[in-house]
């Protein structure tokens, strides 16, 4: 933690960054995003297991962008989000510094995206037994049970769009949920509106989601939205050996194809 504060202080003092986007003490057991602009405020930074929010999400916020060049405290999901955003031309290497943190809390030296790519490439990205079990639990259900399970989950949705707001990859200036000519997605949070929204969200993130899990953490109703994304990420890897957020020049799995892609479901 001290090492991080030191690095943050230096970055601000040298002018390498105008703002450090990191974690500070929040309410209860939570950590919260802090925006450190002066070297002497760097002591507000903390680094522990409560620091899970994907801070790359703040790059889409005009008020944060107005603060100047950021240095972003980044664990693996944040790094992957940054790489994915770079591959979608949403951030450029020169516009930010990465204060990388390894899974065991060590500071990483990641001077450029290449170093970040190398780090991400060595990180274990297979699902843990626990994560796999979460998926399997649903996959083992019968078709009807799965339908009922998700209908119950979606019934809790109030369409607050916290899942969208918390997602670093949901950056569209005009989300299709806000397009009304035609009203493609129903506005109200009735059952149809909720189902359509969650399907659209999952599909638009397929091949882009970096599995940070912030959608589920953000959901006030506790809907396990990350499972939809995880399921699709796994399928994309299984079928196309493609993972999002691995490279700043990565290909979008649904933007490319191979003639030999499997098609056993097509007559």
């Amino acid at each position: 933690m001290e090492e991080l504060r030191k690095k943050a202080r230096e970055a601000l003092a040298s002018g390498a960054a105008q703002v450090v986007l990191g974690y500070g003490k929040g309410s209860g057991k939570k950590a919260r995003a802090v925006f450190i602009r002066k070297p002497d405020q760097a002591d507000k930074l903390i680094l522990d297991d409560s620091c899970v929010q994907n801070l790359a999400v703040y790059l889409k916020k005009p008020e944060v962008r107005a603060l100047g060049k950021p240095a972003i405290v980044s664990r693996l999901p944040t790094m992957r989000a940054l790489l994915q955003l770079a591959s979608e031309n949403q951030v450029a290497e020169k516009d930010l510094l990465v204060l990388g943190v390894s899974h065991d809390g060590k500071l990483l030296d990641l001077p450029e995206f290449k170093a970040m790519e190398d780090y991400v490439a060595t990180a274990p990205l297979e699902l843990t037994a626990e994560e796999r079990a979460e998926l399997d639990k649903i996959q083992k259900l019968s078709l009807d049970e799965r339908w009922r399970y998700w209908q119950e989950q979606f019934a809790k949705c109030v369409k607050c769009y916290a899942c969208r707001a918390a997602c670093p990859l949901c950056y569209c200036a005009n989300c299709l949920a806000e397009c009304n000519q035609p009203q493609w997605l129903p506005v109200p949070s009735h059952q149809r509106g909720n189902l359509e929204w969650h399907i659209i969200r999952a599909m638009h993130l397929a091949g882009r989601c970096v599995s940070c899990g912030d959608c589920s953490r953000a959901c006030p109703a506790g809907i396990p939205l990350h499972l939809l994304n995880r399921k699709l990420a796994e399928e994309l890897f299984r079928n196309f050996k493609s993972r999002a957020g691995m490279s700043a020049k990565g290909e979008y799995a649904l933007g490319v194809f191979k003639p030999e892609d499997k098609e056993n479901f097509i007559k």
Partner: protein
Amino acid sequence: MAIDKKLLKKESLDQLFSRLKSSGRSILAPVNRGEQIFFEQVNSPGEMAKDYIQTTLSAKGAVFPRCEELFSYRFEAQEVKLEDRKSEPKPTVIFGLRPCDAASFAVLNSVFTWDYQDELFKSRLEKTAVIGLSCKKADEYCFCASVGGGPGETQGSDILLTELSSGNYLAEIVTDKGRDLAALAPELFGPAPAEDKEKNLAAVAKQFELKTLNAKLSQLFDKNQLWVEQSLRCLGCGACAFVCPACVCFDLQDEAGRKGGVRLRCWDSCGFSLFTLHTSGHNPRSVQSQRWRQRLMHKFAYMPERQNFVGCVGCGRCSRLCPADMNLIEHLKEIAENRE
């Protein structure tokens, strides 16, 4: 009218529930759903969640559903036929509502009736009775005492129950509606217990003076820097508004096919950029800091002045559930203590 104090034994709840049901009322009560607790229809007290501070969503939906039909229409050649909503609200008892949430119905009512009378809302409210439950526990997010409420506040409930050390309840019958409910099972309500109510209540400290906050707010509209700083980590979702028991803002939406359709009213949030966007592209509240300001101003400055109600009951949900840990009480204290 004076409040009747009675004793309601814990064993009597089953009886009370069945009497309520046989009188044609449906009962909404907190139910566990995974780690969340929602108000759902129940038949017996056994289905209810135990030992919780606050439900995930409030019971607002009982009087102000998150999506409700206002009227429907049919297309017939060039003509349009309007039809009133067919389903009339059913008599409902909300059981186990916290005093803060119970107080929110009056806030909602103040908006729906301050000028034009919203009969659709009123008809739902009329059919709804509240058997509240005092709070034995509070957490750091609770601040009812700062906005005129309290963990054992009777205002808002028709009957307020307070769990005593024996597990039995002190039943305070507050309103005529409450008396009607008690009259369904008069034998269950015994003579008032001697035990002191206060010692069975959670401690919720007062954290700021409403009047000070109000006076400060009215000076702070154009202190842009304050609003930008406060809202820097706000992500601009609508979670705070949708979990809030006192947020009223809504949207009207048409959903129709070729033969006809419905006009719906659904919850909306002042935190969304679309909320005030003009068709021309102009937006009076174009950035999040302005929308955050609106949220605070509306609840703590405009509503007290226009509707005579604070638009907040201190339930703390917005802070508990905020994905960015926007802690409302922290920001309110900052404003109340503002020295500018």
